[in-house]
């Protein structure tokens, strides 16, 4: 019986450790990510700490959750130069951000989509572009899909590659976990939010790439930068347009979205102008690049 008790205790401890690990692991990785953003932001600002500087007022931002990482990184770097400036950033969705900017509740409304026709009275400043590439296995003969076909593949209406001009094999739909910003953007642009039927959900861009690389019938989506990084998977053209930075900047490749900062017309606060100028400066765009987004300048 003593042995049983010892084994039991060992089991309890080991399982306890596992539970502890998974939670600790998660928070650790996110704090590391924050730290690295802070570090890169800090190193950049120290390089050119002499430009603007000296602002002492306050600046409020509101809007897109997808832009959280970018806005935080920009704000951090901007604060390095203007230590007395109080920046308050809320992340509550693009729609709310635009509304707050219109109502004057926030100086800047962050939006991860174009402004709609009825959202007037605002000046939109695009500070970065988020591009997503659709990838398939190297063996796949399908090189071109329409946006509509892609949406139908992801919602499960199209199940076989032969329906889109490929071989007679079932499509294996691979995507990202629910917390992923790439997934959020992909589903939002295709207007298939919460309707996707995935066969595999991966917790990283690399996971999606590896799965597509090793599964002949797979289709997946990753950030454009990751798709271009090496030659392990094929990019698919959308509506005949290749996924490339030029096509995204030109606006012909649809699977992309602008990260824009909307400012109410007539808002002449110096802090606002300085912050947007900073985001569009070489230094701000370096931050954009570090976050795997497409620069606009």
């Amino acid at each position, binding site marked *: 019986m003593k042995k049983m008790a010892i084994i039991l*205790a060992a089991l309890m*401890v080991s399982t306890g450790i596992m539970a502890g690990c998974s939670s600790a692991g998660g928070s650790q990785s996110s704090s590391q990510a924050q730290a690295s953003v802070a570090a890169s932001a800090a190193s950049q600002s120290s390089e050119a700490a002499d430009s603007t500087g000296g602002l002492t007022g306050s600046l409020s931002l509101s809007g897109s959750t997808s832009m959280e990482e970018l806005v935080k990184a920009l704000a951090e770097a901007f604060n390095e130069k203007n230590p007395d400036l109080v920046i308050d950033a809320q992340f509550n969705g693009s729609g709310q951000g635009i509304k707050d900017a219109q109502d004057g509740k926030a100086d800047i409304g962050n939006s991860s989509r174009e402004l709609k026709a009825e959202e007037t009275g605002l000046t939109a400043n695009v500070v970065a572009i988020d591009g997503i590439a659709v990838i398939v296995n190297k063996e796949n003969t399908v090189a071109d899909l329409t946006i509509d076909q892609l949406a139908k593949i992801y919602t499960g209406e199209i199940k076989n590659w032969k329906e889109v001009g490929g071989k007679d094999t*079932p499509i294996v739909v691979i995507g990202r976990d629910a917390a992923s910003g790439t997934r959020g953007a992909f589903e939002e642009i295709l207007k298939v939010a919460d309707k996707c039927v995935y*066969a*595999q959900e991966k917790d990283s861009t690399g996971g999606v790439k590896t799965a597509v690389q*090793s*599964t002949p019938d797979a289709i997946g989506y990753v950030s454009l930068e990751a798709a271009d990084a090496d030659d392990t998977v094929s990019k698919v053209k959308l509506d005949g347009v290749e996924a490339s930075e030029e096509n995204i900047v030109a606006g012909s490749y649809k699977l992309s979205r602008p990260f824009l900062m909307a400012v109410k017309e007539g808002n002449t606060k110096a802090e606002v102008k300085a912050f947007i100028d900073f985001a569009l400066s070489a230094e701000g765009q370096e931050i954009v690049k570090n976050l795997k987004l497409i620069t606009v300048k």
Partner: protein
Amino acid sequence: MQGNEMVKTTQSATATKSFFTIMGSSKTKSAIEKVMSVIFVACGLTAVLAVLGITVYMIVAGSPAIGKIGILEFLFGTRWAPTAADPSFGILYIILTSIVGTFLAVLIGVPIALLTAVYLAEVASPRLYKMVRPAIELLAGIPSVIYGLVGAILLVPLMRMAEVAIFKGSETHQFTGGANLLSAVLVLAVMILPTVVNVSESSLRAVPKELKEASLALGATHMETIFKVLVPAAKSGIVTSIVLGIGRAVGEAMAIMMVSGNVVNLPLPFNSVRFLTTGIVTEMSYSGGLHRQALFSIGLILFLFIMVINIVLNVILKKGGEKNG
């Protein structure tokens, strides 16, 4: 060092100038006794404190989300869409996957492991024993990520072929490319082998020789002796090995994450599924708010799961032990 010296001096009983002699004053000796007993208690308490700390933390971190979502909706909801416009946090399929997956893995792994243990303890020739034994030990030492990697490279493509053959022309089946429950179960079944083999084998070896000799002397064959005398006599050790195997299977994350597909689905053999463990790992890194809290709640459920398994089997063991004893 001090311990050695003490042994040496007491054995030789020579009066050296060492601190620890039998000639030493009773005062210093009793001080040492006291200090050591405190150290022992402190070491023993470390494990207890760790378990207590983890338990308290899991309850504190895991309860708020359950409260906000509602325990019934959390445990029995079938829709897991934490980031949807209308989010829902039902983990029934995830719980079922962990139960079914573990059960199937044990169903496949335990018979193989038990027969291996019997083979090693009773049947194997010394030469073969020397080959099988290290193989089992190596299996225990392989990191789980390697199991996952090999599973993803070897097993998943095989599963894909089986899937394409079985579901050819099916309109309703969602093709997973081989990352499914069955792949995860097979990986888990192999992973629990060493645990079950090792503990079962040592408990079989611990059965008193007289039992075996008596059985053989009464005319029972070797096989009859093994299955009617030795295995029943080693029952409690074998049950322990199964508990440990279940513990390993329920708690495994890394290996099965690479072969199970990770989509919340009903646990059918060729469905892409998500386990309690992989559910936490997959989404923890980017999650926030209630979603993140809900992941902690999944952790709490997993924790309770293991506790319940332990307690239930401990009760069974106790009963078995009383009968035997």
